[in-house]
């Protein structure tokens, strides 16, 4: 009966408009939030989903560098100095810098005469990076002095180049990763008037580092005992950024004329773009829901104002604030519960859409619907409803007392 008295002046069209606004706002806000929570590991760079943690940089090589190096052996090559490395380390958006270790001795590789690649011979180069940056996890990735076996890692692109370029055109057999791993090569290193043979096998292929990798200890030992330079300057560096998508980072690289792996650059740009887009969508959701909330706030205030005579009469009859607020509270709670429930339908569709697409890209770290949508959404609704209920109570008290 109280509701009969208090429901006066509720305009269905106004309520429908507010309902739609709140539902849309909740949809956008929850959708953006759900997406953000799901891909947050990527934003925070704790996940190797895009393998973007490490950015490999080198100095730009200009035509004049080539000309000068051809003319004279003494011309300095575009290598990183200790000071430049230290400067990089001191940048706020860079967490750490690791160097590629080059060898300063001659290396050649050849296969066994009775193996599947008999007669294979090539001059070679080897590089090393600190073990923690290697994306292939092998227990036997180590070399100790006096050991005549050196494990090696090749870039996957080398194998692809052979299989789909060289082997196909020369009518040679294509080989698998495991197949290559079975082949033993002999490596000969020479320098300082000495030679030494080692046995090697490809124990893995790397997506990330585009060079022939051997353990760092071997390179150090080799440079010391066979090399022309014990500690050659690195030509490439691994940069670990606090935020690989930071525009400041790439501005710094541009200013210092450092080249960055283009794939990583585009990934990082995509990540930055994704971050900006998600933030914009979140803001739009917040704006819509704020407007809807403001509309709701004004509508309820107007409703109470229009019903102020009846509220006063009820108060005169002895109805308490709780008695008078209750029907409005029920109406608001129902309104938001229904809005939230309806908003969940497109939200689930949206989540299904992006999660299935991300799964195709190999991303699997999804939160549950409860932690991603239900809990933050319900929390948000509770706060809004709480504010509205408080407003209703204050307003009724003001009207009736």
């Amino acid at each position, binding site marked *: *009966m109280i509701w*009969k*008295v208090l429901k006066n002046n509720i305009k269905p069209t106004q309520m429908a408009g507010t309902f739609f606004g709140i539902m849309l706002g909740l949809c956008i806000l929850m959708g953006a939030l759900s997406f953000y929570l799901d891909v947050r590991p990527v934003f925070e760079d704790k996940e190797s989903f895009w393998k973007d943690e490490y950015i490999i940089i080198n100095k730009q090589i200009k035509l004049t560098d080539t000309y000068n190096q051809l003319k004279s052996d003494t011309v300095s090559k575009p290598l990183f100095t200790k000071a430049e490395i230290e400067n990089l380390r001191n940048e706020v958006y860079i967490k750490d810098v690791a160097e590629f270790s080059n060898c300063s001795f001659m290396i050649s590789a050849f296969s066994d005469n009775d193996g599947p690649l008999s007669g294979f011979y090539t001059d070679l180069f080897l590089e090393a990076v600190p073990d923690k940056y290697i994306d292939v996890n092998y227990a036997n990735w180590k070399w100790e002095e006096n050991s005549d076996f050196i494990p090696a890692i090749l870039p996957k692109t080398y194998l692809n180049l052979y299989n789909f370029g060289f082997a196909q055109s020369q009518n040679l057999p294509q080989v698998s990763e495991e197949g290559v791993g079975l082949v033993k090569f002999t490596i000969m290193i020479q320098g300082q008037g000495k030679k030494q043979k080692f046995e090697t096998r490809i124990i893995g292929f790397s997506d990330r580092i585009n060079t022939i990798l051997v353990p760092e200890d071997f390179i150090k030992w080799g440079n010391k005992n066979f090399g022309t330079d014990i500690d050659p300057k690195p030509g490439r560096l691994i940069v670990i950024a606090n935020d690989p998508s930071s525009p400041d980072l790439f501005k710094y690289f541009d200013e210092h004329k450092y080249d960055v792996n283009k794939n990583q650059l585009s990934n990082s740009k995509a990540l930055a773009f994704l971050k900006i887009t998600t933030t914009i969508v979140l803001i739009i959701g917040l704006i819509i829901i704020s407007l809807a909330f403001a509309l709701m706030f004004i509508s309820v205030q107007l409703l109470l104002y229009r019903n102020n005579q009846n509220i006063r*009469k009820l108060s*005169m*009859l*002895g*109805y308490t604030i709780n008695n008078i607020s209750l029907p409005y509270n029920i109406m608001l709670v129902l309104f938001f519960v229904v809005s939230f429930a309806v908003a969940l339908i497109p939200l689930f569709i949206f989540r299904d859409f992006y999660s299935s697409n991300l799964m195709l890209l190999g991303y699997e770290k999804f939160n549950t619907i409860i932690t991603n949508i239900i809990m933050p959404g319900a929390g948000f609704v509770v706060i809004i409803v709480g504010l509205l209920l408080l407003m209703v109570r204050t307003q009724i008290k003001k009207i*009736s007392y």
Partner: protein
Amino acid sequence: MEIRFSDIIPVPIPEKDIKQSEVWNRDICFNAAEMILIYADSGKGKTTLVNIIFGNRKDYSGDVFIDGTNVSQMKYDDISVLRRNKLSIVPQGIALFDELSMIENIRIKNRIFNFKTETEISQMIKLLGLEGFENRKAAKMSFGQKQRVSIIRALCQPFEFILLDEAFSHLDVGNTEIALNLIKSEANKQNAGILLTSLSSDFNDELIKYRV
């Protein structure tokens, strides 16, 4: 119940009216089981007095105490308790809900405590000549009918004082007498006081009369 006025001067009442009044700027006390008539011409503050007691107005100087508690210092919840248990009112403006029927207007009050049975309500309706109008919307009733509904509604709660603000202004002599007798009988049952305001002092002599 005791209602005590201590030097009350309502802001809107002119100074010359205050001087002539037997209520304003004086110490007076209304006790339960008393029947008080406050009479005066229009604009002297009869409704103001009722609203001050009922906690609706605070624009006055001085103090009003109900059972020793200063009304102006009561919280909303205290006022609610007072209105539910101790003070009933038939306001000058009637204050019925136009969108409700006559019976609903009575029930909306009675449902707080279920103080009267449906039979008792029907008897009061019959006594005041409103039988047959139960389902008529209040908006469609005459002022006199509304006054009688408002009186029945006021009797559907426990009270220690009933405030009747020109509650019979649109009733003929016969209906006024019936209504007043009903109120007196209910007040007697509850050992409650009656405070009646009127333009005229032409009521029987058992009323304690004050001119505002």
